[in-house]
């Protein structure tokens, strides 16, 4: 099972990373362009594309088994104030992973936290929720309503 998150800081950071993994490339680029004081930064790792082996569970909830791999792109950056950020996302978009790492770093910093929240995290969260709700409602429309036909006399 997942390790428990140890602090509000970790919980907040995980939320940010989870959402940044779902940001589209244009969303990330637009936010980066909109940032007034883009900090200098260096790449500590990547951006690079590799594989993560996705596991399933036997019977859905039993012992793990290897289902197959997925492409993942990642980057690690250090911004000017020394904060290190990581970006991890499905797919082969290395630039998006790099931008995600930058925003992970910026999100840890008082000065940029609000910017990251309002320009990226909150809109992505809303989009995610709207997409999920739409999918759920589309699926709900295909739910079978059974009815019983009474035949003959009682």
């Amino acid at each position, binding site marked *: 099972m997942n*390790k428990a998150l140890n602090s509000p800081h970790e919980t907040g950071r995980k939320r940010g990373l989870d959402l940044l993994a779902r940001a589209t490339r244009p969303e990330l680029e637009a936010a980066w362009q909109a940032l007034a004081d883009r900090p200098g930064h260096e790449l500590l790792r990547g951006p*690079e594309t590799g*594989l*993560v*082996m996705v596991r399933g*569970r036997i*019977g859905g909830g039993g012992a793990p*088994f290897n289902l197959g791999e997925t492409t993942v792109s990642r980057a690690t950056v250090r911004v000017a104030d020394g904060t290190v950020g990581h970006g991890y996302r499905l797919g082969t978009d290395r630039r998006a992973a790099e931008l995600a790492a930058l925003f992970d770093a910026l999100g840890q910093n008082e000065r940029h936290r609000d910017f990251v929240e309002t320009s990226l995290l909150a809109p992505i969260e809303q989009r995610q929720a709207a997409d999920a709700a739409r999918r759920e409602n589309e699926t709900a*429309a295909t739910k079978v309503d059974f009815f019983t036909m009474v035949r003959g006399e009682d």
Partner: protein
Amino acid sequence: MYVAVKGGETAIANAHRLLADRRRGDRSLPSLTIGQIIEQLGLAVDRVMAEASLYDRSLAALALKQARGDMIEAIFLLRAYRTTLPRFGTSQPIETGRMQVERRVSATYKDLPGGQLLGPTFDYTHRLLDPSLLDDEAVEEPALRESDGTPIMRVSDILDGEGLIEPDGNMPEDHLAGDITREPMEFPMPRDLRLQTLARGDEGFLLALAYSTQRGYGRTHPFVGEIRMGLVDVEFEVPELGFAVSLGEIRVTECQMVNQFKGSAKAPPQFTRGYGLAFGQSERKAMSMSLVDRALRTDEFGEDVVAPAQDEEFVMSHCDNVQATGFVEHLKLPHYVDFQAELDLVRRMRAKHAADQTPDTDQQEAAE
């Protein structure tokens, strides 16, 4: 004496140039885009991902385009690509119980929590060709209905309450999930490795084996307990962070096959299970996989191996279509020298046969 022969470079280069031409086809028609393949041939993309054992819709679509729609060629391309990438690690097991469900049906319970959700299915279509697709006619938006938000309970958990069904499959405590992309195949093969092999196995091969079990070659008395398809989170523990982050969502199809089992010396009468899980919307594949998974569990239930679908070594060794096509298709490559040797051998055998035949004919007939 062996004389090395070289040649064919120009022929090969021109053949590949011709292939590129035929792939493109009539230049007066627009070229397919990767986006069009992903959006409009999505199930072909899913099948390529499942059997290539690599989840990436864009790359699978590219492979399909490059392969002119030849599925196995596309799967081969994607398998070859994955060998060029490093592996960052292993995900947390995906939680299909927490799936954002896009389809869920059960053939065993009519009124189950969450209900029967048909989703985007070919089931109940009339299989009549639709001429409206000849022209680019507008397509309606999907119908919407407010979801009541009922959790979509797993069918195996319903039966589990009575102890009538075996639990989710467990491996011994100290067992580490094996990986057939890293270790050679060995038999007997534990169930986790069999499932990995089946998950990337050829849909047609597994479908035929699954069908054979229904026709009596290793009967398993199956019911679809549940099929569900939808999006699951891929969580990955990042060492630098010390906690797991979500990398995004992938679409998978899961099949829980429930099988009647009359009991044996090893186990009481109960419902047993076969499990299928595949990348993408791959329902036929997940169903076939679950039937074959159950058929292969003969040792757990003290069943006799009487049919091909129960023969682990046979199924595991032949379900990979890239391996299979490699060995079958290599036969068309030049075997000139081998064949010369065989020709010579057959000539000598015939000469000997003819020599032996003439005087022996009478004796042989007498012996018979």
